[in-house]
Every structure is written in C-alpha cells, then in structure tokens.
C-alpha cells in the first residue's frame, strides 16, 4: 500500500489521498472540518499521523505545508463586493432552478419554457439548449464534481440524462406517474435519484440507463431528496410531514423521521453524514441523528412556514429561511440561534452558504437577493434589479460569483 499523491480540498477543508492498494488506484479523504486559521498545524498533523498510516514520517512536512495553505485560505480577508455582470434574457418563460458545475465555469437554468440551458459563466454566452421535455423543466443537477453530465426533472413525469459537452440526451427515465420535482446525483456519479409528486422516488443507473429501485413508503408527494456524501444513504422529504432515510443498496427504508406537524420543505445531510436537518411548514426545523434516526433538537424562532434549510459545507452551521421574511443561522452543535437575518420585505424562498461558510445568500419574493455575514447576520449587500420574484440562487465554488434565477424570465450573473 503506497501513497501516490496528496491533494488539497478547500471546501470543506480536507486533504485527499491518492494511493495504491493491491495494485488498484484508490482515493480517500482526511476531513479537517474543525480547522481554524489559528489551529496548531504541527500538532494537528501529528494527530493525523496517529490515525492514518499512509502519512509516513517522510510526508509530514508536506502535510504541514498543505494544512497551512488551507489555513491561509480560511483566514483570507473577505471583502468582495458583488456587481451585476450580465443580465441573461435566458428563457421566454419563468426560470425554475439554477446550478453551477464544480469549477463554476458553466451553469444551468431550468424553465417553464420546457428547456434547460447551459451557460458559460465567464462570457455569459449560451452554450447549449437541452430540448426534449414536454413540460416545465423544474429540477436540474450536474454530476459534480465531474460535471460532464446533467440531469433534468420535468412536469412531463420524466427525467433526462444529458451530456454537458455535446447536449446529447443519453437516456430518458420513464416510470413516474406524476411530475418529477427533484433530481440528484450521488457524489460517486453512478446513480441519479428522482423524486416525484407520485409519492415515490427512484434510483437510476446512469451507465445502463435503467431503474435500479423504487423507494415507496411515503403517503404524499416527495419534494426533496439528498444523498449523503458516502452515497450509501438517501433521504426523501415529503408533504406527508415526514422524512425517510433509505439504504441505497437495497432500497429499504431504514428510518422514518416523524415529528413535524406540517409539510417538509427541505432535508439535508451534513458533510460527515452524522446529522440530518429538516425544515417544515410547521415553522420549525429539526435536527436528527442520521445513524439512528432519533430526534436531537427542534430549532424554533420563525413565526411562519420555513421554506428552505441548509448546512454549511463543513456541517457546523444551519441556515433557515421563512415566509416571515427573515432567515436564521443556528450552531449545529449547540443548536443555538447565532444570527437573525432581517431586511427582506417579503418571504424568502431559498437560502445557501458560500462554500467557505462565512457568507449567506437569500432569494426573496421582494425581487432582491441579499448577501449576509453568516456570523453576525449583518446584511452586506442587496442584489436588486430583477423585476419579479427570485426563485433560485447559487454561489460558485470559489464564492466570488453568484447567479440568480427569476420569475421575470432572466438570469443574472453577479461578480
């Protein structure tokens, strides 16, 4: 067993190891989720060495160097102000969702005009139009980190798999009996999962183009799904007020997270797959143990329905947004509310962290997106200009580009 190469992973902080075992090339990662600019790098690396035999004495200096580079990145002063770079008259009908590939070199937009478009981030030029769906393209996803494939979920009840490079449609996945409203690739890029208003989710093999398994058990529409990073589990959130945890290999339901008193709006794993966060129309957010399915805490504070919830990349903070026009940040470990983001004049429908985790982006029906300091809750910028409500927003991986997708049929790029 020999180590071949060490690679940096900025977000969440970690070191990737490429090594050979029994003649086979393999990779694994050392997650440094708690790394801070002032962490003692030498002590940390010595600790890593005790748990990881691949890091032999001869690699020690190199690993210390890598850790210090991660610390530099974390400590970099962040005073980037965003300016409108381009307005893309993207579609002839409202946009639905938007998503970046891993490097941020291109992004995709879905629309009521039944297409998904691929855009070059640098120039704002349209690279390709993915045509073929017979109804609204609602859910879209890249198979990040690779980014060579795109999945689209449509109100036409199908999901399509496309080549990013050529725009060719590899497969049309048929089998759902109602709208497909969520799609996701596993991180290993072997499966695509689809969730539908028909109350089921399905897993599809992207090589063979075949259905692998149907996840049935919910009694109402599935509106969100998410793989864990290791790819052995997937969660589905439903209008039946519950979230189900499924074993990807067998399609068996492992846990049903019961407790919310309203429809689920979103559900996510944290990076190390130990926690699940769920947001609900019952105005609360809940935290669950992902292994046992037991309830850990209920995060309260919002006075109206919660429309979106997410972890930061390292899984240390949770952000929620609500019909009450505010957003909140909670510490995942203490479950205390650490910041209230107030300023939007109407409901906030989307929220996300930048990959570094120190900024939050919100999209609202007040036609603006806002940028916030994740630690203090201070509003840093109002991104205005859309002429109708904003349905979706995203950061690129470096955190220096934002895209917003609106009901006004345009997409805006902010640098």
């Amino acid at each position, binding site marked *: 067993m020999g180590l071949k190469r060490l690679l940096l992973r900025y977000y969440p902080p970690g070191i990737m190891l490429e090594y050979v075992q029994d003649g086979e090339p393999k990779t694994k990662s050392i997650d440094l989720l708690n790394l801070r600019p002032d962490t003692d790098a030498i002590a940390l690396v010595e600790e890593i060495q005790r748990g990881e035999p691949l890091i032999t004495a001869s690699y020690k200096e190199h690993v210390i160097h890598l850790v210090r580079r991660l610390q530099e990145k974390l400590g970099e002063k962040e005073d980037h102000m965003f300016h409108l770079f381009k307005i893309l008259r993207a579609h*002839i*009908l*409202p946009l*639905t*969702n938007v998503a970046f590939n891993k490097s941020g070199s291109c992004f995709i937009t879905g629309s*009521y*005009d*039944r297409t998904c478009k691929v855009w070059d981030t640098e120039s704002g030029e349209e690279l390709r139009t993915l045509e073929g769906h017979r*109804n*609204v393209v*609602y859910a879209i996803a890249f198979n990040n980190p690779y980014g060579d494939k795109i999945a689209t979920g449509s*109100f036409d009840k199908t999901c399509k798999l496309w080549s990013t490079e050529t725009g060719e449609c590899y497969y049309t996945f048929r089998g759902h009996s109602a*709208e497909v*409203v969520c799609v996701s690739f596993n991180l290993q890029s072997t499966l695509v999962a689809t969730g539908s*208003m028909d109350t089921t989710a399905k897993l599809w093999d992207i090589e063979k183009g075949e259905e692998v398994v149907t996840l049935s058990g919910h009694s*109402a*529409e599935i*509106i969100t799904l998410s793989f864990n990073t290791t790819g052995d589990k997937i969660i589905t959130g439903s*209008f039946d007020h519950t979230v189900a945890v499924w074993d990807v290999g067998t399609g068996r339901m492992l846990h049903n997270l019961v407790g919310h008193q309203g*429809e689920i*709006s979103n559900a996510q794993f944290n990076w190390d797959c130990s926690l699940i966060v769920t947001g609900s129309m019952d105005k609360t957010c809940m935290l669950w143990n992902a292994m046992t399915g037991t309830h850990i805490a209920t995060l309260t504070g919002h006075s109206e329905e919660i*429309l*979106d919830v997410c972890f930061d990349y390292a899984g240390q903070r949770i952000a929620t947004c609500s019909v009450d026009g505010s957003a909140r940040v909670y510490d995942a470990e203490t479950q205390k509310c650490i910041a209230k983001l107030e300023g939007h004049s109407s*409901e906030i*429908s*989307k929220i996300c962290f930048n990959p570094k985790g120190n900024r939050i982006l919100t999209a609202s*029906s007040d036609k603006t997106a806002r940028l916030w300091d994740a630690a203090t809750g201070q509003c840093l910028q109002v991104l205005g200009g859309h002429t*109708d*409500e904003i*349905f*979706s927003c995203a950061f690129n991986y470096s955190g220096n580009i934002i895209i917003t997708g609106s*009901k*006004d*049929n345009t997409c805006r790029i902010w640098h």
Partner: protein
Amino acid sequence: MGLLSILRKLKSTPDQEVRILLLGLDNAGKTTLLKQLASEDISHITPTQGFNIKSVQSQGFKLNVWDIGGQRKIRPYWRNYFENTDILIYVIDSADRKRFEETGQELAELLDEEKLSGVPVLIFANKQDLLTAAPASEIAEGLNLHTIRDRVWQIQSCSALSGEGVQDGMNWVCKNVSAKKK
C-alpha cells in the same frame, strides 16, 4: 410565492380548494381580472411574460387562480398548466372585433384538449365599459358556443376594470364547482 408554493398549489386539491385556469389572448384583461378578484390595485398592469397566481376566498372555497400570459409565442406553453384544472375561465376583449376569429380558434383548440375534457368553461366577454364592445350574445353566436355539448359553459359580460359582472361570473364558477366536487 416561491417554487415550493407552486408545488403545493400543483398537487391535486383537497375538497375545498379549486384550481382555476385563466386563459385568453394577450390584452384580453386576464391579469386585470385576477387583480380585481383579489381586490388589488389595477392601475399598473403590464403584459404577463409568464404567469401569476392568486388565491381568493369565495363562498367557502379557496380559489387558486392561475393567470397565464396570452402572447402568441407563449400560447404553446398553456399546456404546462392544464393538470388538475377544475374550471377554465376564458377571457375575450369584446371590443377587439378584428381578433374574434383568432380568439375563437384558440378557444376551440382548448376545448379539444384531452386534459381539459369535461372541465366547465366560463367565458368572460370583457371590456364592456368600452362603447365599441360587442354584446355577449353576439360573441356567443360568433364563437358558436351553442355547439359545446361535452361540458357546462356560460358566457358572462363584464368589465374587469370596473368590476361589473365579475362577481356574477364567479357565482357561476362556485355553483359549478360544488356540483363537480360533490
């Protein structure tokens, strides 16, 4: 509203909720009608590039009204919104006689849609506040409405601007919804 709210309004509606689709040519007055129903300001209305959704309470029902843009290039996308429709409201600019043929054709095509088969249709002969407006009877005849046999239908003259006739039309809607939902 947000995408999630759209999904909530998309699902097959429970007993007391009604999904109403508001269609018609561009400039027929659909958005004005929608805002009149919701008692909102109607002084600054621009052509609808996509859709508007409003929920209004009427006679014990929650009416979820979907107002869909009517410009020619986006008419092919009307089909996006057909699913689970309880009532179709078709709006006509009664003063735009030059386009009676065009609007009649669009209506005929809608009535042929499988997903809208049997769905009750209310036709609003709008803009009766204009002196040049054709009366509802003339429009009914021009559009051969009497040949509609596969569903209940009604034509109602109205002015979305003044609100006159709008409530009469909505009363018909509620009456026919309760007949259907029972």
